[in-house]
């Protein structure tokens, strides 16, 4: 009797486990979001019809901490990493170390169709696609229409320059929303200015550490330094500039002194939310305009910042083929559009922007798409972390930047760090 029960129980237990055991389980390490990636994981699991099951595991909030965790695990050949949501600047480092499984040709072809130029660049390393473009972020110029009008500017129709924006803020005694905090956000700003001026922070991104050449000691580097120095020294960024990140810029922009701000599109749902909560007037939201990032050189297209998330497949995964199948499912344009609407993260695919729901939720969708086509990634070198921190070390605080000496100092310092002669 007892034996019989045990056998039944055992059989029931096996029965419950059996189907799960056959299905390869893919672990997808995601950056924290509003739950959209977990939803996509469920969706693609269902569509796979038993070919694989995706389980989501959430990474730390900061992009730098995400990199630290993934790099350490991959260095230890962690086979549990099947799929990863990767911040683009760190992709070359992982690709160079051989931590990413090569993208199969058919998948590469499929996932690079109709993808914005900036996003495609950011997903590659050395002319080769090493990750699957998922969503792509870019910064826009946000402004108060009333302020722009008073300055005689209409950024929505005619692109504006940094000098015009600075002049408008100075004349009306207002502050500019830029990110001067000693953190990644500041590198994003510096890089966008250098790229918009026609230069590059790193000229030889694929070189070995000792041979990396920087492009800061150029007219472009000096021009970037001049703009930052002017905003910093004249107090145009407000007293909070040296500690200002994207969120602080937004709250400053929402205040009385706000005028123009460069920031990611998350500010739009955030401002809408504030209106719903009653902390912001609807009339304020009606006054908000958006345009492509300001130009450094008048008449030359700006190179706005590029960010976002691409999907990488771990080199030590036991299910590389299934993982790439899953990645191709996740990034299908309709999924990207749904993710944009649910989580506010813009698609890398240009066709996803034609989705009617996207157009309705994000009236600036077309500007984002245009911005992504113009966007330039941050230096794509395996030593990005050193370059970025070296920039922050030498260019912070904004008020101390000197166009005559700062680019030179930054170059000397970063080169010495890369050669292993200096601490960072």
């Amino acid at each position, binding site marked *: 009797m007892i034996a019989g029960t045990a056998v039944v129980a055992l059989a029931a237990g096996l029965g419950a486990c059996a189907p799960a055991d056959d299905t390869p389980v893919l672990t997808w390490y995601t950056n924290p979001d509003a739950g959209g990636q977990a939803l996509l994981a469920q969706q693609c699991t269902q569509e796979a019809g038993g070919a694989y099951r995706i389980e989501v595991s959430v990474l730390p909030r900061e992009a730098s901490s995400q990199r630290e965790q993934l790099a350490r695990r991959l260095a230890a050949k962690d086979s549990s990493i099947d799929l990863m949501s990767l911040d683009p600047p760190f992709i070359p480092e992982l690709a160079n170390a051989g931590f990413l499984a090569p993208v199969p040709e058919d998948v590469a072809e499929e996932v690079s169709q109709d993808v914005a130029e900036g996003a495609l660049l950011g997903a590659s390393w050395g002319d080769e696609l090493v990750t699957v473009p998922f969503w792509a972020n870019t910064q826009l110029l946000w402004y108060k229409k009333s302020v722009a009008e008073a300055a005689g500017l209409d950024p929505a129709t005619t692109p504006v320059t940094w000098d015009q924006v600075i002049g408008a803020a100075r004349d009306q005694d207002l502050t500019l929303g830029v990110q001067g905090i000693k953190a990644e956000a500041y590198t994003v700003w510096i890089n966008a200015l250098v790229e918009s001026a026609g230069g590059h922070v790193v000229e030889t991104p694929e070189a070995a550490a000792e041979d990396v050449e920087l492009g800061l000691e150029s007219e472009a580097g000096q021009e970037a330094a001049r703009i930052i120095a002017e905003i910093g020294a004249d107090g145009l960024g407000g007293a909070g500039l040296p500690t200002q990140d994207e969120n602080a810029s937004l709250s400053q922009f929402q205040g009385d002194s706000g005028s123009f701000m460069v920031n990611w599109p998350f500010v739009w749902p955030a401002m809408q939310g504030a209106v719903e909560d009653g902390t912001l007037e609807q009339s304020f939201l009606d006054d908000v305009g958006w345009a492509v990032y300001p130009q450094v050189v008048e008449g030359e297209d700006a190179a706005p910042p590029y960010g976002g998330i691409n999907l990488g497949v771990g080199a030590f995964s036991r299910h590389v083929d299934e993982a790439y199948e899953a990645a191709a499912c996740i990034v299908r344009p309709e999924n990207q559009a749904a993710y944009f609407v649910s989580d506010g993260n813009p698609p890398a695919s240009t066709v996803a922007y034609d989705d009617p729901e996207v157009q309705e939720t994000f009236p600036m969708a077309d500007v984002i798409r245009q911005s992504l086509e113009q966007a330039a990634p941050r230096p794509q070198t395996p030593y990005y972390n050193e370059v970025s921190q070296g920039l922050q070390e030498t260019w912070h605080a904004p008020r101390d930047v000197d166009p005559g000496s700062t680019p030179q100092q930054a170059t000397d310092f970063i080169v010495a760090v890369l050669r292993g002669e200096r*601490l960072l």
Partner: protein
Amino acid sequence: MSTEITGATSGVASRSTTGAGPDRGAPAGPGGRPRRSDRARAEARLGWLLAGPAFVVMLAVTAYPILQAVYESLFRNRLTAPDDRAFIGLGNYGVILGDPVFWKSLGVTTGIMLVTVAVELVLGFALALIMHKAVTQLRGLLRTAILVPYGIITVVSAFAWFYAFSIDSGYVNQWFDWVPGISPDLNWFAGTWTSLFVIIASEVWKTTPFISLLLLAGLAQVPSDLEEAAQVDGATWWQRMKRVVLPNMKAAIMVAVLFRALDAFRIFDNVFIMTNGANDTTVLSLLAYRTSIGRLEIGLGSAISVLLFVCVLIICFIAIKIFKVDLAGARGEK
């Protein structure tokens, strides 16, 4: 002097009582010399048996990582460039010791340590006196109230202080704008000295209870008859403090200073949360973290950790050899 004697007597008394406990049940005649040495040996064996597991665990969790760090520090080793790993001897130490960044952060760390310990010693002593003298009904409440900051997780307290002083969401600038130099436009975390002020203030707030608790234990050791005698002789409060109380609790004070100094030297959380090293506020622990965790430079980072460990050893050495801190004396064992 007298404390030590009292301490010693009570220590010996209690030890022999417990030690004799098991022996009492043994069938034996009057205890002679060899018998005692048997017991001493048994006691020593018991001691090893009791302390042994802890000792092994200590070796496993401290000695092993320390030796591993020393070994790793001799290599050029970057986690994301496994093929470039190479033995470079003391090369990492050469880079670190020749770099102004290291010396600057060593200076900042030492500065924070000296200031926090000095301020905490004064504040902690005052709090200990209050706790010591409080009427019995208030004592429990008072001790709990004073200990609350120490019970808060450092990261949480660092965030609380950070948000209180931050320029966009903080209230300090609004509340204290009547103080010269403080205005709504003061960005505490944009300058070296203002950043250090907040870092040190939060550290003091958080750990003063610890030092006051150690000092309270020291105060309790001062025999009250000595104080009363001094009072009868007409000594003022200040004279009693200087000549009776402080000399009698010197051991407790020195231990409190040593513990806090070692603790303060390893400061990390406050700096990491508030400035992350901006405006020249990088401390040694943060430098080690940034190098080995952030840059994944295991070799260079290990070398910084080893140097940090050497600094801690030097502080211990100075305290024990020069200031003659007596760890056993403070516990009343000698």
